[in-house]
C-alpha cells in the first residue's frame, strides 16, 4: 500500500534533482514520467503517450502561440520594438522605470488580445529584454516585470484558464470574463505601483534615460518620434484587440492579425529585407518549437502522475483539513500554489478542483468568485520557481548570460504582489462579482 502512495512523491523529487542538476526541462519531464510510470504501472499506459502528444500539437487554442511569437520576432528583427521602447523611455523623461511601465501596459493590451501564457511572455521577452538590459535595468527586475506582465494575459479576458475553469466549475464563460476584468486591472495597478516605488527607493534598478541623452532632443522632436515609431506598433496591438472587439476574428485567430500586421509594418518601414524575413522565419520556428517541445515532453509526466494516483495525495491531504468553508478555501489556495511548483496548470485544475467544487457548491459559495481566486492563483503558479512556465519561456528567448537565478530573483516581488492581489479578491469578493452582476452576464 505504501509503495504506490510514495511513487508520485519520488517522481516529483527526482524531477527536481534532475532539473536543478542542469538537465533540460523537457528531458527531465519525459524521463521521470517514463521511469516512474514504468515502476508504478508498467508499460501499458504509455500507449496513450502518442495520443496525448497529438492532442497538444493539434490543440486549436495553442495556435496563438506560433502566431504571436512570429509577431514578436518580426518586431524584434526589424528593430521596431527596440525603437519603440527607446522612444517611450525618452518620452517618459526623468520618470524612472518608464520602460517598465510601458511594458506593463503592453502586457495588459496583449493580455486583452490573447489568453495563451507562452505567447505573451515570449513576445514581450523578445520585444523588451534587450532594450531593458541595454538601458541598464537590473537583470532580475527586467525579467520579473516581463514574466509578470506576460502572465496578465491569463487573468485579463479572453483567457484559456478562464475558459477551462468555466467548463470545470459550471459557470458561463462570459460571467468569468466579466468577473476577471477588475482583478486583472487591479494586479496591473499593483505592478505599476511597485515599479513607481522602485523608481523612488531603488533608482539604480530602473534608471531613467540619462539627462544628457534627453537634452539632445526637444519636446517637439520627441513628439515627432513618438508619432513615427510608437503609434504603428501600438496600432498593431490595437489591430489584434480591435479585430476581436470589432467582430472580425475569434480570440485565437486574432493573433494572425498581429503577425500579418507586423510583416506589413516592417515592409512599410522598408525593413522587410530577405535576410530579415529569413532570420525571422527561422527564429520564430525555433522559439515556437521550444515551447511545444516542453509541452509535448511533459505528457509522459502528466500521464504518470495520473497513472500513479498522484491525485490521491491531494485527496488525502484534503481529508485532514479542519471544517469550515473559509478553511477549505484557504487550503485550496495553498494546494494550487504548491502544485504550481511542479505541475502544469491544466493538470492542476483537473487534479485539485473536482475535489473541492462539490463542497463549495453545496455551501452556496459564489462560484464566479472562487473561479477568479483560482485563476489568480494559477497565474501565480506560472511564476513560481523552479517550475513556472513563464520562467522557462523567458529563459528560452533570453541571451545566454541571463541566468536562471536572475529570473528567479526577479519574479519573487511579483509573486508577492500577486498574493496581495489574491488576498484583496479574497477579502473583497465584490472585486470579482460586481461587474458580471452589473452588466447582467
Amino acid at each position, binding site marked *: 500500500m505504501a509503495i504506490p502512495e510514495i511513487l508520485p512523491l519520488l517522481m516529483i523529487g527526482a524531477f527536481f534533482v534532475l532539473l536543478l542538476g542542469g538537465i533540460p526541462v523537457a528531458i527531465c519531464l519525459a524521463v521521470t514520467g517514463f521511469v516512474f510510470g514504468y515502476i508504478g504501472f508498467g508499460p501499458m499506459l504509455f500507449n496513450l503517450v502518442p495520443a496525448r502528444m497529438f492532442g497538444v500539437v493539434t490543440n486549436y487554442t495553442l495556435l496563438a502561440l506560433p502566431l504571436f511569437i512570429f509577431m514578436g520576432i518580426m518586431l524584434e528583427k526589424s528593430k521596431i520594438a527596440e525603437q519603440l521602447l527607446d522612444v517611450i523611455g525618452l518620452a517618459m523623461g526623468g520618470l524612472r522605470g518608464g520602460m517598465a511601465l510601458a511594458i506593463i501596459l503592453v502586457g495588459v493590451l496583449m493580455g486583452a488580445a490573447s489568453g495563451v501564457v507562452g505567447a505573451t511572455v515570449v513576445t514581450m521577452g523578445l520585444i523588451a529584454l534587450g532594450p531593458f538590459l541595454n538601458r541598464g535595468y537590473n537583470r532580475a527586475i527586467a525579467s520579473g516585470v516581463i514574466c509578470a506582465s506576460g502572465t496578465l494575459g491569463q487573468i485579463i479576458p479572453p483567457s484559456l484558464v478562464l475558459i477551462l475553469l468555466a467548463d470545470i466549475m459550471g459557470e458561463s464563460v462570459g460571467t468569468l470574463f466579466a468577473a476577471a476584468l477588475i482583478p486583472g486591472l487591479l494586479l496591473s495597478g499593483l505592478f505599476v505601483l511597485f515599479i513607481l516605488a522602485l523608481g523612488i527607493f531603488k533608482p539604480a534598478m530602473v534608471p531613467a534615460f540619462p539627462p544628457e541623452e534627453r537634452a539632445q532632443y526637444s519636446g517637439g522632436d520627441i513628439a515627432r518620434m513618438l508619432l513615427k515609431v510608437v503609434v504603428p506598433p501600438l496600432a498593431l496591438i490595437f489591430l489584434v484587440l480591435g479585430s476581436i472587439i470589432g467582430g472580425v476574428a475569434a480570440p485565437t485567430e486574432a493573433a494572425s492579425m498581429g503577425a500579418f500586421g507586423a510583416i506589413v509594418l516592417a515592409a512599410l518601414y522598408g525593413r522587410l529585407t530577405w535576410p530579415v524575413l529569413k532570420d525571422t522565419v527561422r527564429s520564430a520556428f525555433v522559439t515556437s518549437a521550444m515551447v511545444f517541445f516542453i509541452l509535448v515532453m511533459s505528457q509522459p509526466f502528466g500521464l504518470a502522475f495520473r497513472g500513479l494516483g498522484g491525485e490521491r495525495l491531494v485527496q488525502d491531504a484534503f481529508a485532514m483539513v479542519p471544517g469550515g468553508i473559509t478553511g477549505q478555501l484557504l487550503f485550496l489556495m495553498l494546494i494550487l500554489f504548491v502544485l504550481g511548483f511542479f505541475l502544469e496548470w491544466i493538470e492542476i485544475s483537473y487534479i485539485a478542483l473536482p475535489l473541492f467544487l462539490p463542497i463549495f457548491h453545496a455551501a452556496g459559495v459564489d462560484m464566479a468568485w472562487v473561479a477568479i481566486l483560482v485563476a489568480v492563483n494559477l497565474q501565480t503558479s506560472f511564476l513560481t520557481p523552479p517550475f513556472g512556465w513563464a520562467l522557462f519561456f523567458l529563459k*528560452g528567448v533570453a541571451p545566454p548570460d541571463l541566468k536562471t537565478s536572475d529570473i528567479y530573483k526577479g519574479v519573487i516581488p511579483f509573486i508577492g504582489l500577486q498574493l496581495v492581489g489574491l488576498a484583496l479578491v479574497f477579502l473583497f469578493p465584490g472585486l470579482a462579482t460586481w461587474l458580471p452582476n452589473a452588466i447582467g452576464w
Partner: protein
Amino acid sequence: MRVLERLADGASCAVRIIGGLAAWSGLALVLLVAFNVLARYFLSYSSVGLQELEWHLMAVAALFGMSYGLNQGGEVRVDIFYARYGARTKAVIDLIGNGALTLVAVYVVWLSIAYVQSSYAIAEGSPDPGGLPLRYVLKAAIPAGFALLALQGLAMTLRAGCEAVDPARHRT
C-alpha cells in the same frame, strides 16, 4: 573519436537541412490564418478544409521543430548549478541528458507506430464534411518528428561523449 564526431556532424547537418525547410511552415501558418480571417470577413468565403489546415500546419511545425530547435541551441534548463560546473562535469551532464533524450525519442517512435497504423488501417480522415483527408499522414508526423529528434539527440550525445573524454576539445 574522429569517426564519432563526423557521425555527429552528419546527423546534425541532416536535422539542420530538414528544419530549415520546415521553418517556412511558420510563415505559411501566419498567411493562412490571416487569409481565413480576412476572406471570411470581407469576401464571406470560408472553407472547413482551410480551417483544419491551420492546426495541421501547427502540428507539423511543432513536431519537426523540436529537433531543429535543439540543433540551434534552443533547449531550456535551470542553470543555477550548471553554470558553475567545469567543462568535464558539463559534458557528463550533457551526456546523460542527451543520452536519455535519445532513448525517450526512440521509445516514442516505437510507441507511435501502432497509433499511426490503426489510423492508416481504416483510412482515417476528418470527422467534419469538407475537412482534410489522410489524418494518418498527419499522425505519422509524430514518429517522423521523434526520429529526427533521436537523430539530433544522438549527435549531441556523441559530441558530449567526446567532450567528456577530452574536455580540452573545444565546444562547437
